[in-house]
């Protein structure tokens, strides 16, 4: 009994000494208190004339956010600004971010980044190089960062806006991009999508576009088309929607169709898009785009009455034509102007005709530009809202 107790005592003593020694001698390496980091909410990357990278960060001040959120009328105390924006240039993104520590007080933490804005200059030079850093860094959250390309404005200027809608401008920009769910006029690209598209030789990247609108607001509309990581051109909002229809990324949107003397807004509530490549004799002969969509009548300013199924069939046809027109416009842009397979036809070729793909892999965009495209839109109108026809005085 006595011996056993001794053994325990010795064991405990040794374990205690061991752990204290370990704890004392080592300390905490990766420990970093929340108050000792600068939470980066938005990143802007641009390339300067001399080839250096200009990185802009927007950093949030949590205390200021809290006070603006909780006590708006707490006057008297000078309000701290909720965010600050700093820029720094460096050879690489990482270099710039680290060098920036010479002007900011705490380490920059990228895990909270909501938006990554790529400058036009950078995009024209190629984005693949700078994206490497964002993949490699362990703090980045691939699935929460919205990637946007700034048009006609530098990322730095864009991040400096102070909007009234949200204390954090980055959140404001992110939310305008999120509205794509109900608008479908901007391409929303999360970082993970971009990374996947960049690695996929059968599909070129398309990134949403953001521009400055006045002093305090941004406009998130349209998209930038890339070819092999380099900016090839822009899509206007309607072409963007054509692109989204074709790739099946439309969640809901409003399509205006002309009718008689008035206008009709059709609310697309469901849409599926599929691209395919038809092979003949081992060679691709035809590219097809099939879209099936379901819509409601959202607003009807037309003259003709709307109470028979035939009226709806007529609307379906017009809607289909309208959507087709938009897709056609996008296809033309992609084939003729930008020569970039943004729809992912190449992926289809890669998946189902790997032998042929090996031959054309490098020149696929040129092959793509020359192929005829067949677009089929099958629109269905199911509901008309609360009422059937429009107001008629004599009804």
């Amino acid at each position, binding site marked *: 009994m006595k011996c056993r107790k001794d053994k325990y005592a*010795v064991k405990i003593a*040794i374990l205690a000494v*061991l752990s204290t020694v370990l704890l004392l*001698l080592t300390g905490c390496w990766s420990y970093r208190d929340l108050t000792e980091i600068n939470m980066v909410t938005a990143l802007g990357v641009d390339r300067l004339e001399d080839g250096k990278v200009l990185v802009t960060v927007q950093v949030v001040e949590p205390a200021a956010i809290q006070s603006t959120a909780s006590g708006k009328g707490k006057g008297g105390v000078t309000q701290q600004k909720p965010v600050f924006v700093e820029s720094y240039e460096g050879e690489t993104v990482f270099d710039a971010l680290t060098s920036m520590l010479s002007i900011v007080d705490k380490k920059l933490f990228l895990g909270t980044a909501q938006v990554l804005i790529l400058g036009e200059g950078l995009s024209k030079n190629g984005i693949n190089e700078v994206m490497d850093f964002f993949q490699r860094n362990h703090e980045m959250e691939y699935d929460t960062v919205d990637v946007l390309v700034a048009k006609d404005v530098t990322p730095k200027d864009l991040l400096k806006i102070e909007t009234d809608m949200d204390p954090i401008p980055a959140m404001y920009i992110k939310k305008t991009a999120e509205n794509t769910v109900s608008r479908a006029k901007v391409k929303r690209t999360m970082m993970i999508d971009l990374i996947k598209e960049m690695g996929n030789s059968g599909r070129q990247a398309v990134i949403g576009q953001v521009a400055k609108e006045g002093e305090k607001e941004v406009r998130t509309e349209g998209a930038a088309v890339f070819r092999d990581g380099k900016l090839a051109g822009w899509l206007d909002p309607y072409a963007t929607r054509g692109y989204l229809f074709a790739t099946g990324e439309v969640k809901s949107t409003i399509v205006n169709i002309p009718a008689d003397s008035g206008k009709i807004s059709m609310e697309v509530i469901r849409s599926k898009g599929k691209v395919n490549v038809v092979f003949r004799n081992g060679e691709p002969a035809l590219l097809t785009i099939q879209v099936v969509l379901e819509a409601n009548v959202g607003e009807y300013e037309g003259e003709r009455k709307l109470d028979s199924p035939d009226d709806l069939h007529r609307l379906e046809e017009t809607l289909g034509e309208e959507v087709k027109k938009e897709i056609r416009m996008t296809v033309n842009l992609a084939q003729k102007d930008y020569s970039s397979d943004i729809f992912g036809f190449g992926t289809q070729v890669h998946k189902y005709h790997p032998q042929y793909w090996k031959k054309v892999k490098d020149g696929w965009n040129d092959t793509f530009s020359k192929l005829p495209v067949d677009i089929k839109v099958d629109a269905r109108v199911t509901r008309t809202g609360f009422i059937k026809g429009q107001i008629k005085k004599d009804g």
Partner: protein
Amino acid sequence: MVIILAVFIILALYDLPRFIRKKEPVKVFVVYVFLMAASLAVSLLLAAGKRPASPARWIEWILKMIGVVK
């Protein structure tokens, strides 16, 4: 360096008195001391920045000699 020594001393203090008390046969001591000494030597070399060629390399070399691996 000091930390490594400290850890090894603690480990030895943890085990050896137990062995002595229980009057273990000599072979236990020999094997124990051999393994610990080897570990200590390697870890001191590593800490000093003089990394000896690792077993992974030896194995690769042997396999290359035989000609299985290019």
